[in-house]
């Protein structure tokens, strides 16, 4: 939701790291996006195309590695992907869970040219 703000932050982070390496331009960005991160990749791409224009990130390709939600049941120890209508553990019906993956939103790496 409101991906312009996060896309602006993404541009700042990428340019900062590229400039630290004296790179001439950024060619690719590798993002990790969890299913429960509430970030929509199409919206990020839309804003990215606009705000990267005129920067060393112009034309850089965004790669989204989508991570599904995986819950670990603290009662029976099993891992599962929750159904959208029922979050409880399908093995033991427990509700004591920890989110193993699915909430990520970070920039993993960038590719640059010197």
């Amino acid at each position, binding site marked *: 939701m409101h991906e312009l703000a996060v896309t602006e932050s993404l541009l700042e982070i990428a340019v900062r790291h590229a400039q630290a390496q004296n790179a001439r331009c950024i060619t690719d960005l590798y993002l990790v996006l969890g299913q429960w991160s509430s970030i929509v990749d199409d919206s990020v791409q839309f804003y990215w195309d606009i705000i990267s224009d005129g920067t060393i990130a112009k034309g850089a390709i965004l790669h989204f590695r989508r991570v599904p939600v995986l819950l670990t049941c603290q009662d029976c120890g099993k891992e599962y992907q929750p159904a959208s209508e029922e979050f409880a553990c399908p093995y033991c019906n427990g509700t004591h869970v920890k989110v193993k993956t699915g909430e990520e939103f970070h920039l993993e*790496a960038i590719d640059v040219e010197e």
Partner: protein
Amino acid sequence: MPQRIPVVEKILSANDRLALENRSRFDAAKVFAINVMASPGAGKTSLIEQTVKGLGGRLRIGMINGDIATSFDADRAQAAGATAIQINTGGDCHLDAVMVQSALFQLDLGTLDLVIIENVGNLVCPADFKLGAHKSVLVASIPEGDDKPYKYPGMYRGVNAVVINKIDLLPYVPFRMDFFKRGIEVLNPGVTQFELSCRTGEGLSGWLAWLEGQVKEFTAACINL
């Protein structure tokens, strides 16, 4: 030949950075702040009115209200006894740290113990915009239905307390409390929950006691620093 640079940096927006500044201002003034969120009509303002009436004699309470238009809610809080600031967001569907910062400049934090921030009625966007409050509270209500945790996981997951309001309507609308609570429990294990009715007063004392306890704990921790 492109060269790979590892980054692994969380994408913290400028809003989050400003929220940290707001938090510092609250801490420096020893003021405990809560962010109250809910869909429109769930009972945010009613809960705040009852809170100000119930605790206003013992705590000095300020209130910041965010709405697209009108000062209805700030007026109600003011009538109940709080110092109230109205932010009209001019179309924004949520409060953000910038708006809260501007409200903080209008409040004399040195004269307050508790600031209650009433967010814009919305179960989606406020979850993504930190304000700098110490705790966040979601007000759910019986007529909204029992499937809301499943439909709005981001909101339910991120809050510190859930108030289930309008329990006086349980005999009249379909609502499976166990289904509702199971959704909350998985998303937010052990989250503090209250069942109450702002209208009849049932269950209100538990909420008031918890909030007052939170303020006292915070103030004591500030003194010990």
